[in-house]
């Protein structure tokens, strides 16, 4: 399988100020190694604040990483200047959760789309019209403003806009989380169609495991800035090995998991809640290791036997 993008030992540390002016170090991404295969959908799941969105933004260099390398088609993006990077940007685009806040309210749908399309004016108009129809909007929508669309239509517009430059990789950051079930279904179908028609590669970020299960070929599970498990969708859903992935899968089926809460300052990111901790877990973070082909887990005591 061909690698389209790769994160190599990527970390992102935010230095924040607490109300008393003291500096607090927040490790949003802790030494992330992750690979995206061309033409595949990688689902990224985790609770809020786990670093999912940061990972997506760092991958697109919308946020610079603190350390580590980002490869896209074999080129290291970390070393590129903003000017050079701009030439790459057409290859990777992003769709956000709230389309109302990511679309300029003063531009018409047509203008919004044409902004991202290269070429002569005529070419841009034609392509913008095509894209509108492609995402299920109508010709008349060309002259409408973002506030005149419903939530679902606005998300369609945001998707069309992301497709404008002709990207290979589309990062979707919770694109259906604000939508009702019936509209979510329409948008998920649209993602399936577009993937086929444009041979897209997705990084699909969501807290909703059921949505990710529907779309993704592989799933990566994050917890507090760490990747805790990566593997094929069916495997994660049926035989996850990391206790947190298991808790997540159980919750998606409405089975409550017993949560322990002991204060643990060092060691594994999940140690405070893990039902199976032993001494080693309180000393160091387990590395993400391959326990079977295409199945990586960061746990000293992986549950079950996946292989």
């Amino acid at each position, binding site marked *: 399988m061909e690698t389209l993008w790769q994160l190599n030992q990527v970390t992102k540390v935010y230095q924040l100020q607490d109300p008393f002016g003291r500096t607090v170090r927040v490790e949003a991404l802790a030494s992330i190694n992750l690979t995206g295969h061309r033409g595949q959908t990688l689902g990224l799941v985790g609770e809020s604040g786990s670093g999912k969105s940061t990972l997506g933004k760092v991958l697109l260099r919308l946020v610079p990483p603190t350390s580590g390398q980002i490869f896209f088609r074999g080129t290291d993006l970390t070393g590129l200047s903003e000017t050079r990077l701009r030439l790459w940007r057409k290859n990777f685009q992003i769709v956000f959760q709230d389309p109302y806040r990511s679309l300029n309210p003063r531009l018409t749908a047509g203008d919004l789309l044409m902004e991202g399309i290269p070429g002569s004016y005529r070419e841009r108009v034609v392509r913008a019209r095509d894209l509108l129809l492609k995402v299920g909007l109508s010709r008349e929508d060309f002259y409408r403003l973002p506030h005149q669309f419903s939530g679902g239509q606005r998300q369609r517009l945001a998707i069309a806009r992301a497709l404008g430059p002709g990207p290979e990789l589309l990062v979707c950051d919770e694109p259906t989380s604000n939508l009702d079930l*019936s509209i979510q279904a329409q948008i998920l179908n649209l993602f399936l169609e577009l993937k086929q028609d444009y041979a897209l590669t997705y990084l699909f970020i969501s807290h909703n495991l*059921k949505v990710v299960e529907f779309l993704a070929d592989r799933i990566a599970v994050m917890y507090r800035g760490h990747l805790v498990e990566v593997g094929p969708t069916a495997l994660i859903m049926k035989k996850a090995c990391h206790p947190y992935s298991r808790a997540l899968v*159980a919750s998606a089926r409405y089975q409550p998991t017993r949560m322990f809460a002991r204060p643990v300052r060092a060691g594994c990111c999940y140690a405070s809640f893990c039902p199976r901790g032993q001494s080693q877990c309180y000393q160091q973070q387990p590395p993400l290791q391959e326990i079977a082909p295409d199945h990586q887990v960061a746990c000293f005591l992986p549950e079950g036997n996946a292989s």
Partner: protein
Amino acid sequence: MEKTLVVKNLALAFHQERRPVTILAGVEFEISSGETLALVGESGSGKTLTALSIVKLLPPQARLETGEVRLNGQSLTSLSEREMENIRGRQVGLVFQEPSAYLNPVFTIGNQIEEAIKSSLSRKEKKERVAQMLAEVGLDEKHYWHYPHQLSGGMQQRALIAMALINHPSLLIADEPTTSLDVTTAVQIISLIKTLIKKHHLALLFISHDIALAHYFADRMAVMYAGRLVEIGPTRTVFNSPRHPYTESLIACLPEKYKPGEKIRAIPGTVPDFANLPSGCPFHPRCHRRMERCFREEPEMFPVASALVRCFLYGNSVATEPGN
């Protein structure tokens, strides 16, 4: 025996600008003690307004046109605001979506739960009652002295559940109580509510946009669309053999019902705006089984098996008979 909550023929309209806009029409259901009724629908279907009509916490432009709400045999419809204050908190407990919005940041959790006690108890008795309630919702004794910001979202929601139940109400209304929480926490909160319902024989009105969660959780389910109940019945009946085309289509929208690569059978179009509802059955523009009369007439509730369904497919099929 009278049911804990009886809602009859509820109709609600918003009076603003030129003409009144009908929001709820003919909403009817009952909940007995120990039973959970889930009110399911998409945003803007009138779920929350139904709940707010029961406790009369409506926005100023909203007016109840018809209908009656009876709680433990007492009609709430004619009660004054003063009398309603005695009902809320005492007989009806309320839990809402965003827990942090309902906690005062400058008072401790224990303080706020204690403040909710409506009966006259001594200071010591109140403390004991709060401690007992904290234990019931799975919070530690030490949380009595904690401020809201020291608690996680899940713990804050637990505190609010404690507050809602501290006066032993007979009805609990939970409006999307887990929507702002992480999945793992949400499931814990749901199972906590479930345990408490059983233990205290409460009637629960559970409002959710998540039909899969409602299926897991509720005894009976009511599906709302455009301010109308379109189907109500035992959860298993409604979820496993949905009769109304909307219920059926909504369940078909759940992504977990499909194999990888399969397309979802999505409902075309969007939820209508209350100000210009379609004529006849409000679902007809999106319905895959619509008939000619659905454009003109609005159906009533017809009994089908153990459920009630608002659809002409199940009754009164005069239009299909020739010459009538």
